[in-house]
C-alpha cells in the first residue's frame, strides 16, 4: 500500500519563498574562494604600474629573490587576452597578461611575486625596480578624440576603438520643431564594489591531468575558454570552479589577466597558488565602469511630442578591450538603446569608444542603459519645461502604447509586451504628485527645497544569438543548456551553467521545478558554477538567467515528467493516458507512485520497468531558446522625492517608488531584492560614487574612505509595486529584471534635484551630484544675479 501523498505546499512560480541559500549565507557558512585552504599553497602579489603611461626600460628583480619574481619574459607561450569586435572599423588590440614594453594604466601588472604568504610576496614586490620612460597620459575621453592627443595604442593613429553612426536627415525636423533642447551630460567613472573582490586559487591535478581554477566568477565556462586559450591548453585540461560568489554585477564576467597569471604559475610550480584581490587593487586597477559623455539634442512639437533625438555619445573605454565583451560594449549599446521607451520620427546617433590611460571599462549592472536613461530622461524633463507640461505628461505623450505591443522601435528593438503608460501613471500616483507640488509651493520650515523626479525605461534582457552575433565578440549566447538527474531516493539535481551571486537561483530554479513536477524544493539541489559538473553556458549576465536557465529547467522538467509518467503508469498497471500527475506523483484510480518510488525502480529494481522504457532514463539534458531571441523587455518607472539643502549641497531622498513589470515573477521577494540592491547602486551613481583621475592619470581614490558608496543610512525604504505582463516568448512569461534597479535611479534622482533647483536657475548636468557641484552651481548663479536670493 502506498503511503499517503504529501500535502502540496505552494512553492511554485509566484511564491515569495525564503531563499534556500540563505541558511548558509545568514550563518556565515558560505564557501568563497578566500575560504579555500590547500596544503602547500603559495600567495601571489603583483607589482603594478605607478604610472599611467610609460615605456618600460628595465625590470630588475631583487637580489636573492629572482626565482620568486616573474615577468612577461618568463611567461613563455602565454597568449595575451584578445577581445576584438567584428563591427566594422573596430581597432584590434591585445592585453598582455603582464606588461610588455609599455604600461597603459596605473595598476597594470608588471611582475608577479610569489611567497609563502601574501605579506612576504608584497615584501618582494616592493623591491622590484622598474625603470620607466614616462609618456604623456591620455586622461579625458574628449581630449583623447582630438588630433594631436598622445596615443594609447600608437599603431592605431588615434584613440578610438570604434566609432558607430546611425544617420538620419534632420533638416525637416529642425525646421518644424517648436521645441529644441540640448544638454551636455557627463557620468563619472565608477568602480564596482562587490563585497567579495576577485580571487583565484589554482592548482594542477595530476590524477585528472587538469588545471583546477577556483575563481570568483559569474561566467565560469567563459573563464575556462579564456584561460585555456591564453595558456594553450585543451579546454578538457581546465576545470573552473566558481564557488559562492559575493556579488558580481558584471565585474566577475571578465577574464582577468590575474587569473591567467596565477593559473600559469600553478602549473609552473606544481603547487597551489592563490591571489586574492584587495579593495585597493579593485578600486585603482580593475573594477572600473560607467564613464559616459553625451551631447544630446531633442526636438519636439509644441505639445511636447518627440520628433527626433540627435546625439553624440562618447564612452571612456580605458586602455584595453576586456574579454569577452570588448571595449565597445557600452558605446555600441548606447547607439541602439538611447531612444528608450519612446516613439519618435527620426533618430541620429554617433558614438565613440575611446581608449584612455585608465583601467578598461567593464560591464556594470545596467550596462550602458544607466547612462542612456539619464541622458534621455534629462532631455524629456527639459522638453516638459519648454512645453509647460508636467514631466509625466510629456512622457505620457511619447511612450509606446499597450495596444501597439509588440512594437519595433526606431532602432528596431522589439518591445515584447507591457503597458508603459500605466506603469508611469501608477508611479506618479504612488508618489503623490499633487501634494508634492503643493508642498513645494508652501516651502519647507528648514529651508530645504523639495524636488520630485521621474525616470521610465525598458530593459532588454536575455537577448540572444540574433542580437549578439553581429557584434563579432568572442562570445555569442545561444541555446541555454540544463541537465536534470534524479537520485535513487527521488532528489532532483539541476545542473545549470549560469551562476548565482545574489540572484537566488538555487531557490528560483527549484521553484520552477516544483511548478512542473510538484517536487518539494528541499528535494531539489541546484548545482551551479563548476564547469566540471555543469553544461557549457555563457553564464549569468544581461539579466538572462531566470529567462534562459529558468525556462530550460521548465522544459527539461516537462520532459522528465513524461518519462516518469510512463514508468509510473506501468508500475500502477495503467496506461499513461489514464494517469494524472499530482503533487509529485503519478496518480491513477489504483493508487499512486511518487518520484522517489519511480527513481528507486529505475536505479535499483529495473526488473519492474516496462520493456519499452525510455533508455535515456531519469537524466534529461536539453537546451532552451526563447521563441524569439530578441530579448525580454521588462520596464519600470522610478519616482523620487528629494530635499536639497542648498547651503551645504546635500541631497536627502525622502521617498522612493518603483513600479516594475518583470513579466511573470518567479519569486517576488527575490525580484524585490534585485530592485532594492540595484537602486542602492543607482543611488551611488547619482550622488556618491566617483573615481576621479589626476591630469597624469593617477586614480584619486584608493580606499572606501575616498570612494564613497551609499550605506544603509543613504538608502531610503523603497516602495515597490509590481505589474505582471507576461512575456510572450518565454516559457513561463518571465522577463529579466536583474539590472533594472540600477538603471532608473540616477535619472530619477537627477531630475528630482533639478526640479528642486530649477526655480533658482540651476540645473546640474553631471553625475554624481555632489555637494560641491550643487554649491558651486548655486554660487555661480548668485554671483551672476548679484546675490539676490538667500540660499539657506
Amino acid at each position: 500500500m502506498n503511503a499517503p501523498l504529501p500535502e502540496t505546499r505552494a512553492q511554485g512560480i509566484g511564491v515569495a519563498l525564503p531563499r534556500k541559500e540563505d541558511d548558509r549565507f545568514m550563518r556565515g557558512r558560505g564557501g568563497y574562494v578566500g575560504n579555500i585552504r590547500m596544503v602547500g599553497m603559495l600567495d601571489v602579489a603583483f607589482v603594478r604600474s605607478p604610472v599611467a603611461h610609460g615605456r618600460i626600460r628595465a625590470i630588475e628583480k631583487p637580489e636573492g629573490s629572482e626565482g620568486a619574481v616573474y615577468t612577461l619574459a618568463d611567461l613563455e607561450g602565454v597568449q595575451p587576452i584578445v577581445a576584438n569586435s567584428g563591427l566594422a572599423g573596430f581597432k584590434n588590440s591585445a592585453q598582455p597578461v603582464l606588461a610588455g614594453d609599455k604600461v597603459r594604466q596605473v595598476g597594470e601588472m608588471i611582475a608577479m611575486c610569489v611567497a609563502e604568504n601574501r605579506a612576504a610576496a608584497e615584501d618582494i614586490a616592493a623591491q622590484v625596480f622598474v625603470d620607466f620612460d614616462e609618456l604623456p597620459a591620455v586622461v579625458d575621453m574628449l581630449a583623447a578624440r582630438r588630433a594631436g592627443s598622445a596615443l594609447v595604442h600608437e599603431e592605431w593613429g588615434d584613440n578610438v576603438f570604434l566609432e558607430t553612426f546611425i544617420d538620419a536627415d534632420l533638416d525637416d525636423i529642425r525646421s518644424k520643431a517648436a521645441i529644441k533642447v540640448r544638454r551636455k551630460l557627463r557620468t563619472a567613472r565608477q568602480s564596482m564594489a562587490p563585497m567579495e573582490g576577485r580571487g583565484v586559487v589554482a592548482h594542477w591535478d595530476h590524477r585528472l591531468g587538469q588545471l583546477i581554477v577556483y575563481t570568483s566568477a559569474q561566467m565560469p565556462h567563459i573563464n575556462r575558454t579564456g584561460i585555456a586559450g591564453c595558456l594553450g591548453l585543451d579546454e578538457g585540461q581546465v576545470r573552473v570552479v566558481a564557488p559562492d560568489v559575493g556579488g558580481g554585477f558584471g565585474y566577475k564576467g571578465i577574464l582577468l589577466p590575474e587569473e591567467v597569471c596565477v593559473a600559469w604559475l600553478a602549473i609552473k610550480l606544481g603547487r597551489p597558488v592563490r591571489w586574492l584581490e584587495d579593495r585597493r587593487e579593485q578600486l585603482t586597477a580593475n573594477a572600473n565602469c560607467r564613464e559616459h559623455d553625451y551631447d544630446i539634442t531633442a526636438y519636439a512639437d509644441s505639445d511636447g511630442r518627440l520628433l527626433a533625438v540627435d546625439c553624440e555619445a562618447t564612452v571612456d573605454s580605458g586602455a584595453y578591450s576586456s574579454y569577452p565583451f570588448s571595449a565597445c560594449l557600452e558605446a555600441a549599446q548606447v547607439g541602439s538603446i538611447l531612444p528608450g521607451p519612446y516613439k519618435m520620427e527620426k533618430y541620429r546617433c554617433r558614438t565613440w569608444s575611446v581608449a584612455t590611460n585608465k583601467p578598461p571599462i567593464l560591464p556594470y549592472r545596467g550596462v550602458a542603459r544607466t547612462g542612456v536613461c539619464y541622458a534621455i530622461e534629462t532631455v524629456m524633463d527639459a522638453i516638459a519645461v519648454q512645453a509647460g507640461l508636467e514631466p509625466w505628461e510629456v512622457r505620457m505623450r511619447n511612450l509606446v502604447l499597450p495596444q501597439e505591443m509588440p512594437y519595433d522601435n526606431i532602432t528596431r528593438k522589439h518591445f515584447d509586451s507591457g503597458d508603459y503608460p500605466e506603469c508611469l501613471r501608477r508611479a506618479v500616483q504612488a508618489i503623490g504628485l499633487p501634494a508634492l507640488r503643493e508642498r513645494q509651493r508652501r516651502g519647507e520650515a528648514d529651508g530645504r527645497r523639495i524636488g520630485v523626479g521621474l525616470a521610465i525605461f525598458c530593459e532588454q534582457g536575455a537577448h540572444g544569438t540574433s542580437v549578439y552575433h553581429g557584434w563579432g565578440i568572442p562570445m555569442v549566447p545561444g541555446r541555454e543548456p540544463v541537465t536534470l538527474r534524479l537520485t535513487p531516493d527521488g532528489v532532483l539535481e539541476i545542473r545549470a551553467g549560469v551562476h548565482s551571486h545574489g540572484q537566488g537561483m538555487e531557490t528560483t530554479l527549484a521553484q520552477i521545478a516544483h511548478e512542473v513536477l510538484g517536487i518539494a524544493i528541499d528535494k531539489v539541489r541546484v548545482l551551479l558554477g563548476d564547469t566540471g559538473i555543469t553544461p557549457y553556458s555563457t553564464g549569468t549576465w544581461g539579466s538572462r538567467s531566470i529567462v534562459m536557465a529558468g525556462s530550460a529547467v521548465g522544459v527539461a522538467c516537462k520532459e522528465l515528467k513524461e518519462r516518469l509518467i510512463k514508468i509510473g503508469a506501468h508500475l500502477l498497471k495503467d496506461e499513461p493516458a489514464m494517469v494524472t500527475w499530482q503533487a509529485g506523483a503519478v496518480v491513477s484510480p489504483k493508487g499512486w507512485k511518487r518520484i522517489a518510488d519511480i527513481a528507486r525502480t529505475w536505479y535499483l529494481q529495473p526488473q519492474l520497468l516496462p520493456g519499452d522504457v525510455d533508455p535515456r532514463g531519469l537524466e534529461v539534458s536539453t537546451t532552451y531558446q526563447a521563441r524569439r531571441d530578441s530579448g525580454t523587455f521588462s520596464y519600470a518607472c522610478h519616482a523620487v522625492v528629494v530635499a536639497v539643502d542648498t547651503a551645504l549641497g546635500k541631497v536627502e531622498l525622502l521617498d522612493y517608488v518603483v513600479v516594475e513589470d518583470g513579466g511573470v515573477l518567479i519569486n517576488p521577494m527575490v525580484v524585490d531584492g534585485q530592485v532594492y540592491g540595484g537602486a542602492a547602486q543607482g543611488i551611488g551613481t547619482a550622488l556618491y560614487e566617483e573615481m576621479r583621475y589626476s591630469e597624469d592619470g593617477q586614480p584619486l581614490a584608493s580606499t572606501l574612505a575616498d570612494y564613497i558608496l551609499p550605506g544603509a543610512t543613504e538608502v531610503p525604504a523603497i516602495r515597490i509595486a509590481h505589474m505582471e505582463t507576461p512575456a510572450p516568448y518565454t516559457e513561463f512569461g518571465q522577463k529579466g529584471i536583474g539590472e533594472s534597479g540600477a538603471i532608473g535611479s540616477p535619472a530619477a534622482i537627477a531630475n528630482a534635484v533639478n526640479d528642486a533647483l530649477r526655480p533658482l536657475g540651476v540645473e546640474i548636468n553631471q553625475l554624481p551630484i555632489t555637494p560641491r557641484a550643487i554649491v558651486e552651481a548655486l554660487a555661480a548663479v548668485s554671483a551672476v544675479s548679484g546675490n539676490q536670493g538667500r540660499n539657506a
Partner: protein
Amino acid sequence: MKAAAFDYARPASGDEAVALLAAGTGMAKALGGGQSLGPMMNLRLAQPDSLVDLRAIAELRGCRRDGTGGMETVLIGACTTHADIEDGRFDDPSRGFLPRVAAGIAYRAVRNRGTVGGSLAHADPAADWVNAMAVAGADILVQGPAGRRTVAAAGWLQGAFTPALAEDEIVLGVRLAQWSAAARWSYYKFNRKTGEFAEAIAAFVVDPARDLCRGLIGALDGPPHVIADARGLLAALQAGDPAAADAELVAAGLPPGSYEHHIHRAALQRAAAQLKGNA
C-alpha cells in the same frame, strides 16, 4: 595588502612605553585602538619596525576627577574608547557635549575600538576629537623621556597629521574643566555620508560661569581655527547675518567664494542656530 613585518610590545607603564618608543629611534609607533594606524599599516603607508601597544597601561584607562589650580577637572585616560564616551561610561564634565561628539564618530565598530588618545595622536584635521577638544578648551597630557607636560588642545595640531607630540612621547589623557550647569554647547558636522570624515565642523561652547564663549571652525586642511571670544560672531549669526562670519572664515584659510567657505559658513550658521535652540 598585508602589513609589513613588525615587532610588538605591550608595556605595563608609561615609562616603559616611552623607553620602547625612544629605543625605536623613530621606527616605533604607539598603538591605541588601531583604527587609523591599522589600515595605514595594511596599505603599507606606515611601516613601523615595532608597535608599542598602550592598552595595558592602567593609568591610560578609565577616567578620574581631580583638581588643578582650584578648579574641578576630569582626566579622561587616553585609552578610553569613543564608545565608552558615547555610552556615558565615564564621568562627563561637559554636560553631554563629549558623548554627542563621540556618537558621531565613524561607525559603531570603529567606536568600539578607537580611542581618544589614538585619535588625537593621529591628528587628522577632519577627525572629531582634535576639533571637539580644541573648542572645549581641554588640555592634553603627554609623557616623554623628559617627563610630563601639558599641551592646550587648541594648539595641539601643528599641521595635518602633525600633533605636538614627539616620536618618543605618548598621550596620557585629556583634562577638561567641569562645565557649569549654565553651560551650553553646539557641534555641527557636515559629511558626505554617515560615518565619513567631516568636510566641515563648527562648534560653540558657552559657559557664563567661566566667562567663556568659544567658537571653532574645523575640518580644515590644517589646524582648527579657534575663536577664543566668539560673543560677537555668535550674536551676529543668531541675528541672521551670515556675512559676519566671513572674517573668521578667511582667517581660517577659506577663501571667499570657495566651496569650502560656503560649507563652513553654513556649518557655523547652524551651530549658532543650534545654540539658540538650546538657550
